[in-house]
């Protein structure tokens, strides 16, 4: 079994060796949605390394007779186990596959030592409901093969957090039953980013896709710290029906120390549109695709990253159902459809719509 699965068109939907989070990302990929490029280190890599490093022999004795109510003891012992896991020697085959996959990711993105996010993707997460969500670890801005391997081991180690350990104890689960996949995904470094709704949040118009966009990381838009550029796109014709280019004064960018910092935008760039027309339409197409997959209005976060391995297209960062308009009852005032005359009379008496594109 391979130690690595790529998030791409080859993803096997239903595979069991990737963990919950990775499976979700893989399925989005299989639907053709452009998530940040990357791969998952499968549970097979964990299993083999566990065997090579004889983890069972070192860990099980350390947990013998553990009393979950003795929090200090739990913390002590778990920290010890995690320290062991962090030093776990990897099996040579897995290690080479992970190193190779990371090098390939760097090559695809045209960035040496491309910064990645490394996230645990536990297989137990789903069965345990939400209880483990957020329990496992995430490492951002990881660069270089060795650091990636180190972050993978740290993720494995997070199987032995105090809470996870107590949870297994409580349920009478085998302490070595936890399995762990690890997601390795390129850190998005957006030139522009923002949000998109598959309806117009101002009036509930479902023929429209509303896009807000600004320079740099999307946090500025999401947090409302800038007045973003805004666009409306007709989702049937795919034409831009409204645009307002805002004066954008601040953006979040990556500093030299792999930290995201807020900086001022120079005046000329602040006046420019943060998206080209073609990019506006690409964001709209992406939003529409997500809406079609989930069959309900969506609220997505997206970014445009020049080094995304795909030539700078739109990347989907997050998708969730739109809730505000979607929950309202929708009624269209339709009189008896056969009585078109009264409708024509009211049309002729009502002032026509004001044109909105001027």
């Amino acid at each position, binding site marked *: 079994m391979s130690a690595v699965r790529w998030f791409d068109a080859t993803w096997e939907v239903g595979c069991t060796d990737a963990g919950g989070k990775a499976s979700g990302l893989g399925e989005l990929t299989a639907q053709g949605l452009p998530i940040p490029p990357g791969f998952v280190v499968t549970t097979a890599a964990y299993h083999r390394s566990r065997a090579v490093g004889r983890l069972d022999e070192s860990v099980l004795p350390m947990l013998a007779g553990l009393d979950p109510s003795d929090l200090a003891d739990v913390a002590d012992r778990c920290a010890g186990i995690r320290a062991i896991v962090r030093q776990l020697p990897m099996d040579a085959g897995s290690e080479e596959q992970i190193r190779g996959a990371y090098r390939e990711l760097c090559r695809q993105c045209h960035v040496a030592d491309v910064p990645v996010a490394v996230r645990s993707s536990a297989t137990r997460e789903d069965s345990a409901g939400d209880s483990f969500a957020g329990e496992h670890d995430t490492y951002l801005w990881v660069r270089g093969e060795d650091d990636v391997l180190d972050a993978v081991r740290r993720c494995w180690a997070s199987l032995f957090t105090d809470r996870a350990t107590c949870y297994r104890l409580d349920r009478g689960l085998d302490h070595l039953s936890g399995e762990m996949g690890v997601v390795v995904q390129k850190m998005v470094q957006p030139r522009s980013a923002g949000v998109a709704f598959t309806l117009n949040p101002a009036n509930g118009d479902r023929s429209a896709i509303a896009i807000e966009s600004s320079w740099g990381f999307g946090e500025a838009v999401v947090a409302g710290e800038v007045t973003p550029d805004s666009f409306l796109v*007709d989702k049937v014709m795919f034409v831009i029906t409204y645009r307002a280019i805002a004066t954008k004064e601040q953006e979040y960018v990556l500093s030299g120390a792999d930290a995201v910092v807020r900086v001022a935008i120079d005046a000329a760039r602040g006046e420019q549109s943060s998206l080209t027309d073609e990019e506006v339409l690409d964001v709209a197409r992406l939003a529409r695709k997500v809406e079609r997959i989930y069959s309900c209005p969506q609220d997505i976060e997206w970014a445009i990253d020049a080094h995304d391995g795909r030539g700078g297209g739109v990347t989907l960062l997050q998708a969730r159902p739109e809730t505000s308009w979607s929950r309202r009852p929708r009624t269209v005032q339709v009189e008896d459809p056969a009585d078109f005359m009264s409708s024509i009379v009211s049309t002729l008496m009502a*002032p026509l719509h004001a*044109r909105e594109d001027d």
Partner: protein
Amino acid sequence: MTKRFISPFDVPTPAGAEGWQSLYSYSSLFSEGRREYEDSRFWFQDGVHWPQALSPWDATLFEFALASLSQYNTRQLRIPAANGIDFRILNGYVYLSPVAVPADEVMARSVEFVDRAGFYYRSWNDLYAAWLTKVRALIAEIESLDLSALPESEDADEVVKSGSGIGSGWRLQEGYHRLLDLAHKVWQFHFEFLNLGYAAYLDFFSFCKREWPNIPDLAIARMVAGVDVDLFRPDDELKGLARLAVDLGLEEAFDGSGAADVVARLEASHDGREWLGSYRNAADPWFEFSTGSGFAHSDPVWIDHPDIPFGFIRDYILRIRRGEELQRPIQAILAERERMVGEYRELLPDAPSRAGFDTRLELARTVFPYVENHNFYVEHWCHAVIWRKMRGLGGVLAQAGFWPDADDIFLLTRTEVSEALWDHYASWATPAPAAGPTRWPAEVRRRAAIVSALRARKAEPALGIPPEVVTEPFTIMLWGITSESVSHWLRTSVDAGSGIRGFAASPGVAEGLARVIDSPAQFHEVLDGEILVAPLTAPSWAPIFGRIGATVTDTGGMMSHAAIVCREYGLPAVTGTGVATSRIVTGQRIRVDGTHGTVTFLE
């Protein structure tokens, strides 16, 4: 709004056009007697139909058209909130002013409207079939009018011994008066359906705008537009004739020389004669097609100027030989139309709203063939016949020494033609010298100079007090006059540098070098891939749509005939810019965005 347009009473007369008022009916002029009324109103220039200062007789069809439109709104259909459209001529240009209905009459009128319009909508297809029959009969009747020259001696059998008791002089005058009555009648027919067609279209339009406030106007137009449309038939016939010439191996005959030479060459072979037979079948009536709006006697009509259709056919032959597909992709257009309808419909929340959408779309599609097709029958075919008849009559009077050229008759008003005919008839009857030959030759020279002085000066786009908001539905649909276009005219100088705006009449973006032309006579100047910039385009310009990148016009709205044709041909178009021909020069690089209605100057 604080700003206003110039008062019609303050517009100066162009140099050399002094006394222009005598060229038009007194009732169509701004005058001191109605000043208070006229000065309080908003008037917009109609350049869609009358881009040039009118020849005096051509004002006849303008007046018939406007009065018939008004009569249908006001007296016949009882449109609830719109009366007619008042009209004036100033410096030879046409100005229109929609008249509102007093609020307290609207309810009563809507009861009458429901009864009358409802009858038409319910029986639309039958009534439209009857319309086609009666318009064809009317055109045939105009064709049959005998406006030939008066004989030296009346025919003994037909006139004298038949016991009819009347002679050719009466026949000639009756023929002219009958021509006027029939021309007025075809304009009655024209508006029998048009306003109702627009009303049903507007109802679907309003439904879509209410449910989807951001839906582009174009999307609505494309859901409704027909595919098999008579207005496209002339161009389809040209393509068919080009194909036939290739199939019969006759391409060599079309070597770029004039139609007469090509015809002579074709007459020499069996296949050539077969082709000419097909040409004549197609030409009657489909080449009764004006190169302009059909409202000017001077706009060449294909059938009378065979160099025009032969030139287009030659173009098409060359394109066939290059392997181009000429036929419109009807299946693809239909499939795209159904995709759009399906996707918008799917956005509706429930079954009743979908039923409402379906009912309105169906009615809009029922009425739309009339909206698209009537233009060929009335403005093109029937007008072409009227112009020919008038030209014939002009020739009769030219023969009698009234003026040098047959076309000089168009420099008289319709009542003056009646007087001149009387003059001619009386002098023929007596015989004795007519007054006309001493009066008209100098007078037509004076008038021709006035008309060209009027045409040398561009019209004011609007006059008087702009309305707070334009709501009259037909004004918006047909002329593209909206609150925005009015305010745009008031500040035309604002975004002078980078580009101009107009109606997003036909979607798509194209970039290229501009070619500014005033009339179809300049078609030969247009190079492949250029962007055509013109005061307006006519449906009969379709044959060159296949080789230009886009078109930009001074006048026209979403539903103008040119916009309909551009959409059909997939040619990006921005219409109603007001200033394209004066702001863009030939050779300038521009970008036309027909989806958003913008023209960007790239240099």
